[in-house]
């Protein structure tokens, strides 16, 4: 499915920066620093693929997703969205133009308990995007909502019920139906399954995959669980402290991880098989992730890196470069290695 796909870029992100200012003082707020939640990210998302974005909490993966959707105004950088009408930089659009573009870019949120308005019925939640964008009359909207509920595997009979009457997995299905209402091209899935129970997670993953096949969707799939990301993604980007440290196809990432952080991350993920677990060598990282308000000099991973090179890693940021075709990494170990 994914392998034969043409490399048709849907979204091009270039030097995207999202800084949150830190201020001091009550009346005269002095700008004393920045939390660099997303720092100089460049990557492409191809049409019809799933790009997985993994990293630990606080690494900026959700911020990146939100900055792409312009839910935050990025500090700098371009987010170019390409469709039949040509290229448009989302970071430069606003008002009505952006609102119209939002039909094509949607989001599925992490917490199905917090992302649905408890006072709205399922019907009004799912039809709200249609109303906001003035699509169809109310009879047609109702028909569309029933159809959407069917698509996500909910009984249309539930249309007048409220979110609290549903379980977590069912609520996530409602959130998915809402995201699909406007026939989007691109959906940012921000940890869509991490709040769900194990047996329900597989249901939602399968649903997302089915929908992708059916409607030709492109996903940015944000998650901290590498096993899930590997399962669903065509390519994976690994983030650490606001930066993408490695980006490649998901099988390649597992078979041939280049960045020391990726290696450690892969080795830390438990595999549900005791025979394999007994034999595995874990790379245990020392310490914690540094604060993004005060990142270390040089490479962000230098404080925990088992392959730290003194005088090099702690001086300047390594460049994010393509060391093998389609395999990007930001690490001094691969300096001078060219594709």
């Amino acid at each position, binding site marked *: 499915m994914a392998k034969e796909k043409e490399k048709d870029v849907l979204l091009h992100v270039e030097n995207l920066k999202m800084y949150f200012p830190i201020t001091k003082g009550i009346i005269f707020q002095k700008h004393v620093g920045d939390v660099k939640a997303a720092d100089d990210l460049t990557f492409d998302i191809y049409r019809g693929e799933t790009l997985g974005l993994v990293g*630990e*909490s606080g690494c900026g993966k959700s911020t990146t997703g939100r900055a792409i959707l312009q839910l935050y105004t990025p500090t700098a950088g371009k987010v170019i969205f390409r469709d039949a009408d040509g290229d448009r930089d989302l970071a430069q659009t606003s008002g009505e133009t952006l609102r119209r573009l939002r039909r094509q870019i949607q989001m599925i949120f992490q917490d199905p308990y917090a992302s649905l308005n408890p006072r709205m019925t399922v019907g009004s939640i799912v039809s709200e995007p249609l109303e906001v964008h003035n699509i169809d009359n109310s009879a047609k909207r109702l028909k569309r909502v029933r159809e959407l509920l069917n698509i996500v595997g909910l*009984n249309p009979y539930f249309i007048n019920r409220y979110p609290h009457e549903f*379980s977590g*997995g*069912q609520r996530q299905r409602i959130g998915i139906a809402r995201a699909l209402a406007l026939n989007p091209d691109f959906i940012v899935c921000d940890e869509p399954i991490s709040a769900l*129970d*194990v*047996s*329900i*997670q*597989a*249901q939602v*993953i*399968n649903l997302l*995959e089915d929908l992708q096949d059916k409607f030709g969707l492109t996903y940015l799939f944000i998650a*901290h*669980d*590498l*096993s*899930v990301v*590997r*399962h*669903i993604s065509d390519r994976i980007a690994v983030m650490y402290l606001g930066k993408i440290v490695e980006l490649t196809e998901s*099988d390649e990432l*597992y078979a041939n991880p280049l960045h020391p952080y990726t290696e*450690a*991350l*892969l*080795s*830390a*993920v*438990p*595999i*549900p*098989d*005791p*025979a*394999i*677990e*007994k034999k*595995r060598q*874990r790379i*245990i*990282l020392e310490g*914690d*992730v540094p604060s993004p308000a005060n990142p270390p000099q040089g490479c962000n991973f230098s404080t925990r890196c088992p392959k730290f090179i003194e005088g090099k890693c702690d001086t300047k940021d390594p460049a994010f470069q393509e060391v093998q075709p389609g395999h990007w990494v930001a690490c001094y170990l691969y300096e001078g290695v060219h594709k």
Partner: protein
Amino acid sequence: MGRLLEVNNLQTQFFTQDGVVQAVNDISFYLDEGETLGIVGESGSGKSVGVMSLIRLIPIPPGKIVGGEVIFDGQNLVKMTDNEIRSVRGNRIGMIFQDPMTSLNPVLTIGRQIMEALELHMGMDKTQSRKRTVELLEKVGISGAADQVDRYPHQFSGGMRQRVMIAMGLSCNPQLLIADEPTTALDVTIQAQIVELVQKLQEDLGMAVIWITHDLGVVAGIADRIIVMYAGQTMEEAPVRELFAKSRHPYTHGLIASLPRLDQRSGKLESIEGLPPDLVDLPKGCPFYARCKYRIPKCDKQRPKLDEISPGHYVACHIDINKDSITTEHPWEEDKE
């Protein structure tokens, strides 16, 4: 190895306005000295309530242990007075909870919180308990422990807080450590640190561990035996390798098959359709009946007993999934009609 803990027919219920919640419904298990037992289940499966009932940490009311016994080192914990159980809890049985932020007191220094147990159970004075606290913090890998004792929980990261919790759980050299989802709130690299730490400490101190989790992957690497719980009951119990290689219960089987694995490219995941039953209104038969692909009419009428099918391998199921075939392809859809 001697028998450390034996739980027989434990039943815990919560009496609420909506009815009686049968959180733990007749579970029995044992634990030997130095052994690691993994208890796996989804939310609402009764795994936490079950273990909290052992040390009588469930709120009464609305909760109540309505039946069964818990024999720990020859004594029945269920029958103990409040004072007696207090001398066991935190002393001979240590605990680590899921969320280190809400289980630590934010207005007391971490040193104060660890010292409390030492002074209470071991009868130490302030200087002794402080010295021991510093030792404990060093043991769980907190560097500069002598300076860290006077800090407050908010000054630590999630992983460090969990280390503080572990130090607290270990403070009185317990024979049994209960770890209730200790790594669920943590990132994978920190989870790996904590898992390794607990395993190392277990080797050093020779204590038994009950590790409660929803993540089969975590217990695959650390447990000797695993119990799979569903709707307050034990569905399957087996040595760890046997459970993963030869799971016999349709629920365990489905649970393992529904996990995406890092080391394999899998096709479509097998999912368990439907939802767990309402604990207020449990079906008369097997609680997994409505979601089971292998179900037969008998399953709806009669609750299967936990039978030993091979040494140490117990299953509560009327059928044998290796012999019997799938009877309903989509049980969930059949119910809708």
